[in-house]
C-alpha cells in the first residue's frame, strides 16, 4: 500500500502555489488526512503534489461581524479557538465528532470542504452557517462562492482544477440564534451514518445534513416548517430526502436517522433554553 510516483513541490508563496496548480493533474496536499489514504490505496494518483503547508493560510480572525477561518486551520485549532466558540458555536460541536485527535491535529478546514465527502461534518456546517468560500486561481484571481453554490454533489465542488480554497467567511452568530450539531456514527470518530447541522433563529432556520444525501445542501422544506414554528412538519419533510442507498445502510435507514437527529437537536435546543 504505497502511493504511485509523484512530483512534489512546496511553494513558499500563494502566487507560486497557484502557478503550480495550473499544471495538469496537480493535487493540493494540505493535512493529507484524506488524500494520503486515497494515494496509498491508489484511488488517487496525482502527477504533482502541491504541498501548501508552508503558506500563511491558517489564520482565524473575527472582525466587522465576520469570522474568517483560513483554509489551513487544523481541526484541532478551530475546535479550540475562542473566536470560533464565540462567533460560530456550531463548529466546535461538530468538530468534536470529526475523526480522532491525531487526525484533527493535522486535518484542515479547507481540505474537508474541498473534498466534499458526503459524510463530512464541515460542509453541512458551512451550509447551516451561511458561509462564503474564498477561492483563488492564477488565471482568474480571487472569487467568492456562497456555500450553497460551492457544494455540487458527491465529492464535487465549484472549485476549478487550478483553484485553491483560501478561507471560509462566516457571519458571526446573531443574537437569538441557536445551534445544534448531532450525528450517529458506529464508533466515535467514524464517518457519520447521518448528521444534522441546525441553526435556528427567530422565525428563520438553516438546516443541512451529512451522511444522508450524496451532495450536501440545505433542506428548504424543513427550514420553512421550522421558520413557521412547526417542528413536526420539519421532521416529516426529511422523509423525502434523496438519501443514499448502500448495502450496509439503506436509504430508509438514513432518512430515519436524519429525522431522529432533527427531533433530538430541537429537543436539545429547547432543553438549553429552559436551563438558561
Amino acid at each position: 500500500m504505497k502511493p504511485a510516483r509523484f512530483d512534489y513541490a512546496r511553494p513558499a508563496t500563494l502566487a507560486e502555489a497557484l502557478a503550480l496548480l495550473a499544471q495538469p493533474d496537480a493535487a493540493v496536499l494540505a493535512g493529507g488526512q484524506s488524500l494520503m489514504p486515497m494515494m496509498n490505496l491508489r484511488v488517487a494518483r496525482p502527477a504533482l503534489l502541491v504541498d501548501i503547508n508552508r503558506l500563511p493560510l491558517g489564520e482565524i480572525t473575527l472582525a466587522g461581524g465576520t469570522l474568517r477561518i483560513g483554509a489551513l486551520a487544523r481541526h484541532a485549532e478551530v475546535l479550540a479557538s475562542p473566536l470560533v466558540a464565540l462567533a460560530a458555536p456550531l463548529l466546535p460541536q461538530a468538530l468534536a465528532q470529526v475523526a480522532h485527535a491525531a487526525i484533527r491535529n493535522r486535518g484542515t478546514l479547507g481540505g474537508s470542504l474541498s473534498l466534499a465527502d458526503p459524510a463530512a461534518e464541515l460542509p453541512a456546517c458551512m451550509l447551516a452557517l451561511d458561509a462564503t468560500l474564498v477561492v483563488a486561481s492564477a488565471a482568474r484571481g480571487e472569487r467568492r462562492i456562497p456555500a450553497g453554490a460551492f457544494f455540487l454533489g458527491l465529492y464535487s465542488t465549484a472549485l476549478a482544477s487550478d483553484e485553491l480554497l483560501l478561507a471560509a467567511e462566516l457571519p458571526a452568530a446573531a443574537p437569538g440564534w441557536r445551534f445544534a450539531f448531532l450525528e450517529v456514527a458506529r464508533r466515535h470518530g467514524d464517518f457519520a451514518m447521518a448528521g444534522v447541522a441546525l441553526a435556528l433563529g427567530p422565525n428563520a432556520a438553516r438546516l443541512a445534513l451529512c451522511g444522508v444525501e450524496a451532495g450536501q445542501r440545505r433542506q428548504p422544506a424543513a427550514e420553512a416548517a421550522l421558520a413557521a414554528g412547526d417542528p413536526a412538519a420539519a421532521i416529516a419533510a426529511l422523509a423525502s430526502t434523496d438519501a443514499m442507498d448502500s448495502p450496509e445502510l439503506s436509504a430508509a435507514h438514513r432518512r430515519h436517522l436524519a429525522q431522529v437527529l432533527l427531533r433530538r437537536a430541537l429537543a436539545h435546543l429547547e432543553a438549553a433554553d429552559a436551563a438558561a
Partner: protein
Amino acid sequence: MLPPDEPTAAIACTVNGQAIRTQVPLRRSLVDWLRHDVGLTGSHVGCEHGVCGACHVRVDGLVVRGCLMLAVQADGAAIETIEGAADALTLALQQAFFEKAALQCGFCTPGMILQAAELLAANPAPSRAEVREALSGNYCRCTGYQPIVDAVMAVGAALHAK
C-alpha cells in the same frame, strides 16, 4: 524496495533530538522512513490509511498519523518517536500499561501511549468516556481496551493526587 531511479528530496529535521540531514524518496511515508532508514522500529505500520493509530509519532509536539505524512514533509520539523519519548508522563504510562496488563502483542502500544500522553497533558483527570474518546483512533486487537483504559485512568488518578 524502491527502484534506484526513485526521485528524492533533501530534508533536515531532528528525530528524538538528534539532527538529521538526508535525502528521502518523495513517496516514502514518515513512519516508513523512521523504521527503514532511521532504524527506529518502535512506531508500527498497521493499516497505512490512517485508521489504526499504530504509526503515531509526535511532529512539533503534536501526535499525528505517521502513515499520512510524507517523510519529505518532516523537513524543518522536530520528530519524536516512542523511543525518544522519555518524559515523566510517558514513563508513567509505560509502567501503568505493564502493571494493568494493558498489552498483549504490543503492536498498538506505542501509538496508544503517545495518544494517552497527549490526552493527560491537556486533561490530567479524564473520565473513562474521555479516555475512550481520546483513544478511539487507536485499534487494539488483543485486550478489549478495558485494561488500556484502566492504565490511563490510573496515571490520571496519580496525577490528580499530586
